[in-house]
C-alpha cells in the first residue's frame, strides 16, 4: 500500500534572493486565464535561461555527461566495427588478440582530472565503459585500422595514467647487454653477500692464448673470485658445486670464463651470490638456456635471510626450557 507521509514539520525558508516563494494570498485577486487573453502583461523581471546539461537534475551533471559521451563513443565504435565485420568476433579470432592490459588512473586521480567526486560505484561504472572501449581499440589496432585506433586513443588517454609506459615496464628486468669485448656484467645476491660477475666466452681466451704463442687446447672454464682461483677461495666442495651447477645443467661447462668480486656474508652466501650472477650471465649470453635456469630456480634471488630473534625466545625459533612452575 503506497501512501505519502507528508512531513508535518514546518518547512523553513532562508531569506535569500534566490528562493522566492509565491503564495496564493500574496498575488492579489484571481483572474481566470481566459479573461487575460487580450491583456498585455509586463515582462517578468528576470527571465533566466534553462539549464544547459541534460543531466542537470541528477545533481552530478559532469559525471553523467562523461558517462553518456562514453556510451555514445561505444555505440559509434560498435557500429563501425560491425561494418568492418570485426564484431562479433569468432572464437579463433578472439584467441588471436593480444592480452588487454588497461592502465587507468586511480580513483582519486580520476576525480581530480574529471573535476567530480567519484564514489566507488560511479568509479566502477566508468571503468567498465573504459574497458569496453579499450577492447574495441585493441581489435581495431590488431586488425590494422590505425585511424580508428587513433581516434579511440584520443578519447582514452584522458583516463590513462600519465606514466603508462613506466607502469607497464615495472617488474620487467632491464636486459643485460654485452659490452664491446663480449663480456656480460651481472649482479648476484644471496643472504647478505653480493657478487659482481663478469663473464666472457672462453673461445676468446683460447684464441688470445694462441696469438700469444701457446699450444692450442680445448676451452675450459676458469673462475677467479676476489683475485683468487675458485679452488683457493672456496675450499669447501659444496660451495664449488654450487658455483658450477649453472654450467652443468645448461651443458655450457667450459664455454665461459668468470671473473667475480664478492663482498659481505660468509662462504655459502658468497658462493650462492656468485652462482646467481653466473646464472644471469649465462641467460644473457645464451638466451635459450634461460628457461632451463628458471625451472631450476637459479635465476631467482634466494629470498631466505637470517630470521630475527624474538622476545621471549632464545633465538628466532628456539624457546627456553619449559618449567612446570
Amino acid at each position, binding site marked *: 500500500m503506497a501512501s505519502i507521509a507528508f512531513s508535518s514539520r514546518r518547512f523553513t525558508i532562508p531569506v535569500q534572493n*534566490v528562493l522566492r516563494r509565491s503564495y496564493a494570498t500574496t498575488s492579489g485577486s484571481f483572474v481566470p486565464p481566459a479573461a487575460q487573453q487580450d491583456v498585455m502583461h509586463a515582462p517578468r523581471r528576470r527571465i533566466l535561461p*534553462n539549464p544547459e546539461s541534460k543531466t542537470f537534475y541528477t545533481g552530478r551533471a559532469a559525471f553523467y555527461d562523461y558517462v553518456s559521451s562514453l556510451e555514445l563513443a561505444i555505440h559509434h565504435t560498435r557500429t563501425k566495427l560491425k561494418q568492418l565485420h570485426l564484431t562479433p568476433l569468432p572464437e579463433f579470432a578472439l584467441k588471436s588478440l593480444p592480452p588487454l592490459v588497461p592502465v587507468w588512473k586511480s580513483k582519486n586521480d580520476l576525480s581530480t582530472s574529471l573535476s567530480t567526486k567519484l564514489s566507488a560505484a560511479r568509479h566502477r561504472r566508468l571503468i567498465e565503459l573504459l574497458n569496453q572501449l579499450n577492447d574495441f581499440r585493441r581489435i581495431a589496432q590488431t586488425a590494422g585500422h590505425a585511424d580508428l585506433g587513433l581516434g579511440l586513443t584520443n578519447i582514452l588517454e584522458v583516463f590513462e595514467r600519465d606514466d603508462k609506459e613506466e607502469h607497464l615496464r615495472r617488474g620487467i628486468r632491464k636486459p643485460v647487454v654485452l659490452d664491446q669485448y663480449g663480456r656480460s656484467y651481472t649482479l648476484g645476491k644471496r643472504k647478505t653477500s653480493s657478487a659482481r660477475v663478469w663473464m666472457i666466452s672462453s673461445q676468446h681466451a683460447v684464441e688470445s692464448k694462441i696469438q700469444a704463442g701457446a699450444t692450442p687446447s680445448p676451452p675450459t672454464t676458469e673462475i677467479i673470485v676476489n683475485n683468487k682461483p675458485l679452488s683457493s677461495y672456496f675450499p669447501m666442495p659444496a660451495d664449488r658445486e654450487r658455483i658450477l651447477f649453472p654450467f652443468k645443467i645448461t651443458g655450457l661447462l667450459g664455454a665461459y670464463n668468470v671473473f667475480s668480486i664478492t663482498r659481505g656474508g660468509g662462504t655459502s652466501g658468497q658462493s650462492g651470490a656468485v652462482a646467481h650472477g653466473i646464472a644471469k650471465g649465462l641467460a644473457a649470453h645464451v638466451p635459450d638456456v634461460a628457461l632451463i635456469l628458471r625451472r631450476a630456480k637459479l635465476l631467482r634471488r634466494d629470498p631466505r635471510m637470517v630470521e630475527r630473534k624474538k622476545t621471549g625466545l632464545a633465538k628466532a625459533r628456539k624457546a627456553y626450557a619449559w618449567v612446570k612452575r
Partner: protein
Amino acid sequence: MSTATNIPRNAPLQTPQDWSEMQYDRGVQKIFMDRFEKFGSTQTRENAWQPHHSLHRPPPPGQLTLSALVASGAHFGHSPSLLNPNFIPYAYGTRAGVTIIDLDQTLPLLRRAANLTRAVAARGGTVVFLGSRPDIRGAVKKAAERMGDRQSYYVGEKWLPGTLTNRLHLFGPRILNRTRVIPDLMIILNPLQNMPAIRECAIEHIPTIGIIDSNVDPRIIMYPIPANDESTRTAELVSGVLSIAGREGVELWKQEETRRLLERNSNETKRNERRRREAEEENYQIGHDGGSKL
C-alpha cells in the same frame, strides 16, 4: 575461402593481412546472404518487428492503439492482495493471480498526458523524465534527447532527495542566480521507488505524470497513467509517446519564438519609421513657422 590452401580456416590470426582476409571473407559471405535474402520469405529485417523498435520507434500519440499497450504488457498489475483501494476504478479484474489493469481507461489518460506534455513544451516549459531502474535508464535518456536541446532533462539514477527543495545547497547560489532550476513538468516512470521526488514536486507545485501500478495510490500523481510499472517495454512505450508529443510542442514553441522575434523586428522598424517621419515634419514646420510648435 582462404587464399592459402594449407592453412586451416579457423587458424589463429597473426598478421594484419590475416585479419584483412578474415574481414574480406565475412564481407563476401554477407554479400552472398544479402543477394539471396530477397528470394523466399517476404519478411525482412526492415519490415519485421525488432526488440529495439519499442525504444527507437515508439508510436506517435495520435497513432497509439490498445493492441500496442497490450503487446507491451501494460495490463499486468500486481497481486490482488496488494491492490490499493484507490486503484479499483482503474482495475479491470483479476486473472491468473494478478490484477488486470483496464487499458480502456489507460489509453485516454495516456493521450491526455501527451497533450499536457505538448502544451507545456509549446509554452517553453521544461520537462524532466525520471526512471531510476537500470533497464529504463536508456528509455528516459532517449526520451529526453528526442525532445531537443534545452527543454528536456533526464534522471536515470537515484533521485537525490533535496534536488528541488534543497537546491540552494545542492547547486549553489551562483547557479541559482543564473539558471531556472524548477522544472515545469515531471514524468516519473517508477513512482513507488521515487517517493521523495513526488514529495518535492508537491512542495514546489510541479505537475507530475506517472505510471501507476495496481499497488500504488493514484492520487499521489497529478496525471496518472494506470499501467504496469515493472515492464521495460511499457516504460519505453509511455516515455516514447510522451516525448514525441513533447517534440511537437518544442516545434510549436520554436515557431512561436521566431514569430515573436519577427514581430518585434517589424514593430521596431515601424517605430523607427514613425519617429523619422515625425522628426521630418517638425523640421518642416519649424522652417515654415520660424519657431517651435511646442
